[in-house]
């Protein structure tokens, strides 16, 4: 279980408060207006944001002071997910176990980007880049997956394909997944539960 208790994060003059429990294997959609602190919560779980107070643990292991590279977390950022000077294939192999790398061509086929693997990321469209980054994040060995607006660049059909693929992969590998999204259809297709952050400042989570 991912447990977040009385977590406080300073953002400029504001202090954001979070309280949250997520069961293992659960898929959570985080929703709320822009600036409410959805991405900040993911960054805090991944270890990229300094915490003011509170407690963060995964499977009873305290992560509060664990550096990002030692957390059981794989995160998809809103941008800069691919090294622009490496091919897509070279990017996809980074952080993925050798045994799992054989899955890359098949899963790229499933996501409709099999033809793009030998190209540099700059040659891909925004949607293709997003799917490539999603593919790698889902194939990584970490049990906890954080996706920050993973489908924002996709058209309706590709979005459907990608959400269904993500759900299949999460279930197949038993991942626990937290996803920031503004689209209610992503919630209905993918998430077990949606959490609406209406005012993180007042601790309404």
């Amino acid at each position, binding site marked *: 279980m991912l447990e977040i208790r009385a977590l406080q994060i300073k953002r400029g003059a504001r202090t954001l408060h979070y309280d949250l429990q997520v069961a293992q294997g659960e898929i959570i959609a985080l929703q709320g207006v822009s600036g409410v602190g959805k991405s900040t919560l993911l960054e805090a779980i*991944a270890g990229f944001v300094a915490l003011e107070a509170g407690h963060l643990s995964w499977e009873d292991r305290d992560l509060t002071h664990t*550096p990002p590279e*030692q957390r059981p*977390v794989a995160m998809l*950022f809103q941008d*800069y997910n691919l090294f622009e000077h490496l091919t897509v294939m070279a990017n996809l192999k980074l952080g993925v176990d050798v045994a799992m790398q054989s899955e890359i061509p098949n899963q790229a086929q499933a996501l409709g980007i099999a033809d793009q693997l030998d190209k540099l990321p700059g040659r891909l469209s925004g949607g293709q880049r997003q799917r490539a980054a999603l593919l790698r994040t889902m194939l990584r060995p970490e049990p906890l997956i954080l996706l920050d607006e993973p489908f924002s660049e996709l058209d309706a059909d590709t979005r459907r394909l990608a959400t269904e693929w993500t759900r299949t992969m999460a279930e197949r590998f038993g991942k626990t997944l937290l996803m920031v999204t503004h689209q209610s259809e992503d919630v209905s297709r993918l998430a077990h539960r949606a959490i609406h952050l209406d005012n993180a400042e007042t601790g309404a989570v």
Partner: protein
Amino acid sequence: MKLSAFTSGKWAGWPALGLVATATALAFGGLIGFNRSEFDWSYFSDPYFLAILRFTLLQATLSAALSVVLAWPMALALSYLKDSTHKRAFLSLCVLCFVMPTLIVITGIISLLGRSGSLSPLLGDDWNLYGLSGILIAHIYLNLPFAVRTLYLRLQSIPDASWRLARQLKFTRAQRFRRLEWAAAHSATWLLLGFIFVICFNSFAVVLALGGGPKATTLEVAIYQALKYDFNISEALALAWVQLLIAGSAFLLVSFCGKVSWLSPASAPAQLRPPATRLEQLAYRLLYACGWLFLLAPLLALTPRVIHSGVDMEFWRSLSRPLLITLGLGVVSTVLSISLAYSALRPYRRARMQQSPAALWLDWLTSHSLAVPAMVLSVGLFVLLLPHLDLDHWGIWLVAAINGLITVPFAASQLKPALLNFDSQYHRLSLSLKLTSRERRRIEWSYMAPAIRTAAAFVGMLAMGDVAIYSIFGNQDFVTLPWLIYGYASTYRLDEASLASMVFLGVCGLLIFYLEKQSPRHA
């Protein structure tokens, strides 16, 4: 290994930073410690010293002012000319002229305007290249292209939206200049004045070759003469302190005001810039042609002498060893400089990512040697090492090492933007992907390869062209190509000097070609 390069290497980069700082500290130690009790303060009221100081300030001020004033119309002309192969070649030539070893330019100018120069008969009987006129011509030749390129880049950065508004408001030519062009480039103008002043204040080879005697000498050359000819270390130290105080203060003042970017690629050309009138077009083309003529003339002046030189095999044999020594020194200095700069930037990058206020002084510490003239550093280390080392034996290594140290700020200035870009884009991703130190290094180095190549070409050229450090630590056992050219030029063996300069120019041209090729859309 689970930790990333950044957290695993908490102290990574500190030894390099320490080495750069220690070299400066040792040089200062040498200056402070030597003959303290015999320091002659009366020297500062000596008429000879005051004359040197006055001339140093005069030539630096005039060189800076003339370079920048002449660069403005040239940069404006370039900004109005359409993009073309010859315009790109002109901008590449600007880079070459700024970093070209000074002795090549000096030989070219002497071939053109010296006693038996091709243009000298047109200048009348009273014409004398040696003295203030020669120094100014050489300084303008070396610095005008730098100013042109810097101002041109600023003018290119005026957004199309501003040009559209200017057209819609029906601005006159004067209004366009005042409201847009001057507004975009006035800060660069003041910075350029400061930078070129510092460069010319510290000028050595130009003044040594074209100064023409005690009436037209500078602090830098006076230090060299005091040390090498008179072996008057007290005098050299007094001059070095004055040099450091003035050049260092001027440099710090300029560096606090901002930075001039001149090697970066140009932004997309403005589409909505109002077209020039026919008269303006004519003026711009004329200026552009004058620019080409000015930059090419000293280089072309070498050609007839090269063709008619009639040198024998003995000359080529005498050239080959200095050429190899210069290339070897260039390689050693470049490897040292790039390695030190890359490592010394690590603590700065770490502090910046942690948003630590220490980033500011770590950045300054990496580039601090810019404020210390090469001659001051050399003299400081010379007097410090003299009692402990056989300087004739170790001279070649000291020339390579000091050139490596002195060029660290130049290497850092080329590497820093790319490294900061890498950090801002990929630091979080690298941590998130849990890359090993080895993986991270492999990815970072492949990203940095173009910047490293550019920095290496730039630093290599500066190190190969060195005359100041060589003049202190060099000896006849290892003559470098610039020193050989200086020897030929100062004894009026201009055919040999031209030929050697042409060979050197070829090496530099290849490096510039390589440097410019690295920019995807070079200016």
